[in-house]
């Protein structure tokens, strides 16, 4: 427990150090950052690439929330990054599915199981990204929700924590010579490592309970599966872990694609808790709005795609088709991963003039 709280504290300190670094850099640097991420396509692609590389959407979303709290990123600039992080995080279980590549049938199921997560996230972005650009659906809803939360005093919950976090962050920054660059790098490193060890520790602490929840709920109903995905992911603070542990079960044929899909949606919802926790720790209303937009993005995606069978059949059908293609032609499976998670973002970055 002591280790758990220490890691949580380190996570908050890392976040605060990021905020401090922008104060040390001065206003000009933050404005340059904002200008750089003003193009929403760039934000989206940065989210995909960054998350694909670190294989943790929690790291990307927490950093995004930290940057918003520090004033280095606007809400409009942050939302596309959050969307990109959602796509990028699904690379982990797709990579895990490659472990089944030597057994054709098993790989067909495992790859389909992994990519249903990709297709759900890609579809959600395809629907909500234009809506956000045109009407700011997510930003407006998130800000409304943030006002409600602020009105109920929810944002002030973490105020006592800040009294301890800030002096520690300032002390650490002082040790780094009060350099903006070093404080930023130190903050990111601390946040990344704290989150990594936190996830490892939580997985160890809750795995027995989590496997029991999974066993009891997954095969009951879609609602139970969504609840299980959400709960287990919130417990381990990583959707990559919860979606990845399902891959062998789908590969073995124990869990069907239809049973897995609502669980995946639940995992997407559960993973939004990390950024929400980070945002509440910053105490910044804008950061809380961004974290809430992450939650709303996944909730809206679930509500649009899952309830209606013909729409639900789209990601399921695409995943099934890709599973078959990957099993028949295994290099095609590798090509899909490289293309979707790395090639496409880089190409779009060029096309949108982001470079």
């Amino acid at each position, binding site marked *: 427990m002591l280790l758990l709280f220490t890691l949580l504290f380190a996570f908050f300190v890392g976040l605060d150090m990021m905020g401090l670094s922008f104060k040390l850099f001065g206003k000009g640097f933050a404005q340059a950052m904002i200008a750089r991420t003003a193009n929403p396509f760039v934000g989206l692609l940065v989210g995909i690439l960054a998350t694909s590389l670190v294989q943790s959407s929690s790291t990307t979303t927490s950093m995004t929330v930290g940057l918003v709290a520090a004033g280095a990123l606007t809400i409009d600039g942050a939302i596309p990054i959050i969307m990109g992080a959602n796509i990028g995080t699904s690379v982990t279980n797709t990579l895990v599915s490659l472990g089944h590549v030597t057994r054709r049938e098993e790989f067909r199921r495992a790859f389909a199981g992994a990519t249903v997560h990709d297709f759900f996230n890609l579809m959600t972005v395809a629907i909500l990204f234009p809506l956000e650009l045109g009407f700011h659906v997510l930003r407006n809803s998130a800000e409304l929700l943030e006002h409600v939360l602020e009105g109920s005093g929810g944002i002030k919950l973490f105020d006592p924590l800040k009294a301890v976090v800030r002096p520690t962050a300032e002390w650490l920054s002082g040790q780094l010579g009060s350099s903006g660059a070093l404080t930023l790098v130190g903050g990111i490193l601390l946040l990344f490592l704290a989150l990594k060890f936190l996830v490892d520790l939580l997985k160890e602490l809750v*795995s*027995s309970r*989590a*496997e*029991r929840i*999974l*066993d009891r709920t997954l095969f009951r109903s879609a609602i139970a599966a969504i609840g299980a995905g959400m709960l287990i992911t919130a417990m381990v603070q990583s959707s990559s872990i919860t979606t990845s*542990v*399902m*891959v*062998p*079960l789908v590969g*073995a044929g*124990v869990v069907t694609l239809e049973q897995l899909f609502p669980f995946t949606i639940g995992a997407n919802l559960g993973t939004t808790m990390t950024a929400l926790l980070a945002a509440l720790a910053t105490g910044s209303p804008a950061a809380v709005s961004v974290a809430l937009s992450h939650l709303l993005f996944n909730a809206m995606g679930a509500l649009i795609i899952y309830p209606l069978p013909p729409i639900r059949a789209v990601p399921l059908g695409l995943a099934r088709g890709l599973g078959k293609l990957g099993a028949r032609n295994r290099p095609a499976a590798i090509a899909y991963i490289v293309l979707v998670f790395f090639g496409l973002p880089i190409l779009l970055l060029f096309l949108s003039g982001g470079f």
Partner: protein
Amino acid sequence: MFKGIFSGTQRSPLIEAAFDDISDMLRQSAHMLDLALEALLDNAPLQADLDELDDPVDEAERMVRRSVLEHLSFNPQQDLVASLVLVSMVQDAERIGDFARGIGELVPLAKSPRSGPFNEGLRTAARDLRPLFEVTERAFRKDDPEEARRVMSRCSGLKEELQELTRKVADSDLTADMAVVYANAARILRRIGSHLSNIASSVAQPYDRIRHGDEDV
């Protein structure tokens, strides 16, 4: 063997549940065997549909396999060997259910009531075999290698006795139907003993020597 695996740690709840399932499978198979033997050796009508009674055994096998996979997906480091042992044990437990059903399938093959020395020989073997279900279950629940070795030793003795009975059936002047029934009943009881011995060997033997000494008939 399990003591070494679990020392200082808590067993996963799913693995614990899988052990409960194997206990249930053994109890159900023992019940099926009782009914089948009563019909075969005492010429009593079969009291239940053995196929139906075997369904929960088959379902429990699926549950155990699923639980083991779920557990290993979450936590491959914890209870790894126990998980692999469970997959081996559940296969033996399921086969015992099938063999108990097999005894019941012999009853309609006999054109006359069962009596005489071969029937008594089978009765004695069954009387020796039957308590080994409980001993085997106790051995793996309590992780007791001594009890497990006792099961293995007794099953080995039973195998020889039943092989001898089969030889005598072959040399006898029984009608074809009765010879088939007695020889097959002896074979089935021997196989049930072998599967109980396999389960016991997972407690008494190192992992790579589980089922050691078992022979295919």
